[in-house]
C-alpha cells in the first residue's frame, strides 16, 4: 500500500511539474490576442483589436541586438453555416516590423501594408502601440449577407528576421523567436 501511495505522489508531482512547464510557456508567450470587435462604417466593416505583447528577456536582447521582428496579423472572415461547411469569404494580412535603432535609441514600428512608420522611445510603448489597432478596414459590406452569421478570426505571429532556417532546425530545442498564437474569433456584427 505504501509503495502504491508513493507512486501516486510521484505521479502527481510529475503532472504538477508538467503543468508548471506548460503554464510557464503560456505566460511567456510574446503575443496574446485579447479581444477584437468589428463595426460597420460607410459600407466597410472595421475592426478594433487589442493584443498583449510581452517580450521576455531573450526577445528584448534579440531586439536590442539589432534583430528585426516581423509581426503578422492574419485575419479570416468566415461565413458560419448551419449543416454545411463554413465558407471563407475574406482574408487579410497586416504586416508590421519592429526594430530598434541604436543611433536614435528609438523603437521603430513600420506598417508594411501602408508604408507608415512610427517610433517610440521605449519598447513598452512600442509594443503598446502595436497592440492597440484601431479602425482596421476588414471587409466590404457588399460581400456580407446580413441574414447570415459571420465570424472574424485572428492569428498573430512573431518572427525574428535574420535567423537562418537551418540554424532554427539545428537548434530546435531552443526558443528561436518564432511564435504563432491560437486563433481568436469574434462576430462581425451582433
Amino acid at each position, binding site marked *: 500500500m505504501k509503495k502504491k501511495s508513493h507512486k501516486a505522489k510521484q505521479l502527481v508531482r510529475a503532472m504538477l511539474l508538467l503543468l508548471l512547464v506548460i503554464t510557464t510557456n503560456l505566460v511567456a508567450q510574446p503575443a496574446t490576442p485579447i479581444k477584437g470587435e468589428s463595426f460597420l462604417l460607410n459600407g466597410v466593416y472595421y475592426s478594433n483589436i487589442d493584443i498583449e505583447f510581452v517580450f521576455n528577456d531573450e526577445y528584448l*536582447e*534579440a531586439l*536590442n*541586438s*539589432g*534583430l528585426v521582428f516581423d509581426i503578422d496579423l492574419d485575419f479570416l472572415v468566415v461565413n458560419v453555416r448551419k449543416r454545411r461547411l463554413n465558407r471563407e469569404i475574406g482574408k487579410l494580412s497586416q504586416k508590421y516590423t519592429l*526594430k*530598434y*535603432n*541604436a*543611433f*536614435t535609441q*528609438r523603437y*521603430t514600428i*513600420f506598417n508594411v501594408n501602408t508604408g*507608415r*512608420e*512610427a*517610433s*517610440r*522611445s521605449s519598447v513598452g*510603448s512600442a509594443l503598446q502601440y502595436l497592440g492597440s489597432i484601431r479602425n482596421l478596414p476588414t471587409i466590404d459590406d457588399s460581400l456580407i449577407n446580413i441574414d447570415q452569421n459571420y465570424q472574424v478570426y485572428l492569428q498573430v505571429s512573431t518572427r525574428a528576421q*535574420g*535567423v*537562418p*532556417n*537551418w*540554424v532554427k*532546425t*539545428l*537548434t530546435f530545442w*531552443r526558443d*528561436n523567436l518564432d511564435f504563432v498564437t491560437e486563433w481568436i474569433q469574434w462576430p462581425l456584427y451582433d
Partner: protein
Amino acid sequence: MATIRLNQKPAKTAIFCLILLSALSLFALMFASDSPDEFNKLQTPLLMINTFSFLVLFVLVVVSGKKLVRDYKKSKLGAKLRLRMTLAFGGLSVVPAIVVFFFATNFMNKGIDVWFDAEVEQGLSNALTLGRSALDEQIQQGLFATTNIALELTGTDQLDQKLNELRDNSLALELLVLNNELQVIGSSTKRLSNINSRLPSQAEVNQAKNKQSWSSLDSSIDGEYIIRILVPILGFSSNETPLYLQSLFSVDSNLSKMADSVEETYARYGRLTFLKIPLQYSYIFTLALVVLLALLLAIFGSIEFAERLVKPIESLEEGTRSVTAGGANTKNTKAGDDEISILVSSFMQAQREAAWSDVARRMAHEINNPLTPIQLSAERIRNRYLSKLGKEDQAFLSSSTKTIIHQVEVLRDMVNAFGDFAKDPQLTFEHFDFNQLLMEAIDLFEEEKKSKHFTVLCNERSAFIEADIKRVLQILNNIFKNAIDATKDSLNPKIIITSKFLSDDREGYLELKIKDNGHGFDPKFLQDAFQPYVTTKTKGTGLGLAIVKKLVQEHFGFVTAENNSDQGACLTILLPIKQRTKNKT
C-alpha cells in the same frame, strides 16, 4: 523475425544509393555554403537527407554488429576473426575521427569567438556615441531656433501666415502648432522627404510641458534622419489652453548616411552576437552529423570487408574438414575473384587432387595385388583341364578363361592409369621438336590416320620446346583417344590439330588446339571435365583428362576445355617453351 539480408543485391544497391546520395548531399552542403541564400534554402533538406542516411546506417551497423557478436558467442566458424578484423578496422577509423572532430570543433569555436572581439564591440559603441555627439550640436541649434519661433508666435492673430514667414526665415522643414488635445491649430510645411509627418504622442507633449522642451531623432526606413523639437508656446493667449510648437529639421545628408552606416554595422554586429551560440551549436551539430555518418560508414564497411575477407577462409576450413572426414569434396568453392579467394581455391584444388591421388594409389595397390594370381590361376585351369574335357566343355572353359584374362588386362590398364595419376612428378626435361612428336603420336592411331580423321595445321615446320617427352606423348595419346571416342558416332569424323607459338620471341608458350566434331562435353560436366572420375563414357576410368591436366600442370602449363559453337569440343593446351630451371627435376 525478419532479418536484413545484406548479401541480397537490392539491399546492397539501396545501401549504395543511400551512401551516394549522402555523399552528394554533403558536397552540395559544402558548395551551397558559398551563397548564404542558397545555403539557407538547401541546408535543411540536405541535413534531413543526411540525418536519414545516418539513421539507416545506424540501424544497419547495429544489426550487423549484433549478428557478429551472436556468431562470436556461438563460436561460429570465422566469427572470431571477423570480430577482430572489424574491431581493428573500425578502431582505426574511430580514433582519427574523434580526434578530427575534437580539433575541428575547437578551432571552429575559436574562429567564431574571434568574430566577437570585445574591442570591436567597444569601437562600434564609441562610433555610435561619436555620431550622436555630432548630432547633438544640430539638435541644440534646432532647439534654439524653435524656442525663438515660439516666442515670436506669442500674440499672433494670423497663425498660418506667421508660421510660413517664420519657417521661410529658418531651416525648419515643418512647423506645427498643437493644443493640449493634440489638435493641429496651425501648420507650415516645406518638404518632408521620406519621413512621414507625425503628431507627437501625449507622453512627448507631457515631457515638453514639464521640461520646457523635448527633442528626438527620427529615422526613416531608407536611413534618413530628422530632428524633431517640441516646445510649449508660453503666453500665446492668457485665456486659452496651452499650445505647443513642433518643428522638424533635416540632418546633413552626409552625416545622415554615415550615421546610418554606423547604425547598420552596429545592428549587424549585434545580430551576429545574438546568433553566436545558435551558430556554434549548428556548426557543431552539422560537423557531428558528418563525422558520425563517416564513422558509421567506416564501421559498416569494416564489418562487410571483414566478412568478405573471411568468407574464403571459412570455405577453406569447411573444405579441409570435409577432406579430413574422408570425403574428396568435389564441390567447387567460389568465394570471389580476389587473391585470397584464388589462393584458397588453389589450395582446395591441391587438397582435392592430393586426396584423389591417395585414393588412386590405394586402389592401384589393392587391385594390382590380386590381379596376377587371378590371371595365373585362370591360365593354369585352362592348361590343366582344356585337353581333358569334351568338345562342348572345352569351348566353355576356353571362353570363360579368356574373359577372365581379358578383364584382368582391362583391370591392369586401369590400375596403371591410377598409378599414373597418383605418381609423383619425376620429369626429365629435354629439348625436342614438338611438331615431330605430334606426328609420331598421330602415327600410333594408324586406322584413324588412314581414314583421314586427323588434320594437322602447324605454323612452324619445327617447334622446339623444353618438356618431358614421355609425359607430353602421354598427354597427346590421352587427348587423341578422347577425341576419337567422341567422334565415333559422327558421319564424317574430323579432328583438327593446330600448334603455334604464342609469342614471337619464343619465350612464351606453345599453344596446341585439338578440335573435334564429336558430341562435345555435356554442359553439366564441362566445368568438372578435368576432375578425376568424371566421365560420360560407358567404358573408361574417368582419369584421362585428369591425368592430362596433372601432366600439363607439372609442366607449368594450362589446359582448358570448351564446346564448339557448332559441334564438338575443343581442348586448348599451353605448354611453356622453356621450363624454369629451379623446377626441373
